[in-house]
């Protein structure tokens, strides 16, 4: 039976939903036994959360103070040691997984399958290239481990209710000290997380200022949505980088995506094409966003958005 190890992503207090989506992909490999590895300084809350994810056979806990902020350089050698017992090692295609997994793959002497969007067979996968303008079917040669990242927007999170065993493990790999965590700056907010929100409202360059972006926040808060932005809005400094939606930002798949004052550059569209319904509000009727929008409204956002917020409150 094929054995899969999924590397859990977390922030120290809870498991990131990207983990449940990675499991959604792992489950598509028929008859596989799936274990999850948690690297943390304190896994007392994290391990039970991982153990409750559907389809998980066992949770491996690697507890070490050095993993308070899991860094690729320190986690990778330990993953490599655990990987010995597995045929597949999967991580989410988030900045965490993108940083870590190629380091793991190189140490294991294999290439990585980046951004799996579908599983076609035990060693066959589909993945996007050229910013999603082409889809390539790839096949991993027999006899080598499959190391991969999973495009989380392509998968639904597995449910909870599982009762996996939790096992403490202590890899012997020597940990380097050449890489040190200094700090993280996050725009902490009470809004739903951009990557998991059922509804997302995004603003673009047409907002014209950080102050005007308040219009987007107001609409989002009225309908309980997460908030995103185009690259242009981030580059212009209206909002911080973690709000960027698109090829080089976050790739998301909400049920409803409302794009406001976003023209629809190809790299932005790449980030939203798995959304259920796309709504576009833009004053330029020629804007490419209307080519992919399910519902389009040509109009001045400074009039339309307050009116829409009013109508929905």
């Amino acid at each position, binding site marked *: 039976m094929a054995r899969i190890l999924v590397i859990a992503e977390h922030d120290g207090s809870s498991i990131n939903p990207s983990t449940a989506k990675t499991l959604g992909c792992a489950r598509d490999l028929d008859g596989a036994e799936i274990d999850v590895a948690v690297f943390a300084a304190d896994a007392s809350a994290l391990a039970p959360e991982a153990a409750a994810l559907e389809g998980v056979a066992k949770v491996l806990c690697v507890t070490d103070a050095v993993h308070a902020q899991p860094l690729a350089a320190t986690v990778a050698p330990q993953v490599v040691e655990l990987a010995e017992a597995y045929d597949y090692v999967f991580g989410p295609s988030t900045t*965490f997984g993108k*940083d*870590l997994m190629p380091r793991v793959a*190189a140490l294991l002497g294999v290439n*990585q399958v980046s951004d799996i969007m579908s599983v076609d067979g035990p060693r066959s996968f589909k993945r996007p290239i050229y910013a999603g303008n082409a889809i390539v079917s790839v096949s991993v040669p027999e006899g080598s481990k499959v190391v991969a990242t999973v495009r989380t927007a392509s998968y639904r999170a597995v449910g909870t209710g599982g009762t996996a065993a939790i096992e403490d493990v202590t890899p012997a790999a020597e940990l380097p000290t050449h890489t040190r965590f200094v700090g*993280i700056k996050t725009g902490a907010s009470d809004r739903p997380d951009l990557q998991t929100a059922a509804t997302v409202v995004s603003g673009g360059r047409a907002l014209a200022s950080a102050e005007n972006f308040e219009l987007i926040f107001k609409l989002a808060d009225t309908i309980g949505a997460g908030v995103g932005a185009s690259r242009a809005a981030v580059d212009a400094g209206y909002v911080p980088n973690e709000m960027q939606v698109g090829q080089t930002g976050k790739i998301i798949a909400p049920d409803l995506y409302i794009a406001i004052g976003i023209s629809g550059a190809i790299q932005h569209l790449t980030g939203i094409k798995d959304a259920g319904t796309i709504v576009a509000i833009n004053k330029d009727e020629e804007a490419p966003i209307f080519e*992919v929008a399910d519902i389009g409204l040509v109009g001045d956002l400074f009039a339309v958005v307050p009116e829409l917020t009013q109508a*929905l409150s």
Partner: protein
Amino acid sequence: MNKILVGLKRVVDYNVRVRVRSDGSGVETDGVKMSINPFDEIALEEALRIRERGEAAEVIVISMGTADAQQQLRTGLAMGADRAILVDAPQGIDPLSRARAFLKVVERESPDLVLLGKQAIDDDNNQTGQMLAALWGRPQATFASAIEFRDGSATVTREVDAGLETIEIDLPAVITADLRLNEPRYVKLPDIMKAKKKPLDTIAIDELGIEAAPAIDEVGFAPPAERQKGIMVDDVAGLVGALKDKGLL
């Protein structure tokens, strides 16, 4: 710092609308404009700024691929790199073989820093930098949006999903550039002329004596599923109505 090594990949220009060949054998590249991978261009710009601040002595650009990549290396030299190395390798060589070959050049050149783009915009693999750091046994700082140096280490701000993370890494190290690290300079005509006189060495990949990695086979290509154009509404009432019809409100 003595040397900075910068990787430049030759890719289809980012303005080209890429199309899959009708027989599904690949992506149309005949007669298509080729350029330096934009993230690599940002990496090179950063290296040049570091040198211009007096924090590094030499910037070397390296590319792996066919002789065509000399074009991108010449552009890199015109931007201001001091010399160039072409590792003559098959088109589309896999990331791990690339990283292994890169390591051999690193061992020859002993750079203090290797700067790469965070990913190439053709295969979107996002692997080579991390793989090189792993094989080299050195730190990696991916998705960099700011870099500062102090006493043999670098403090790097990284664009991560949660926000901006800062890490400190000992040199030598690999740093991969994200979009907002800088805005690359434009190349001026006199610099293009000057670049022709700068050294460009070619090394055959076989000379480097690397073990070939098990490549992942690309068995077929297809265009992505297209989204259909939807309906247009006239006003907010129409929009609210359409959302209600879809059960989204």
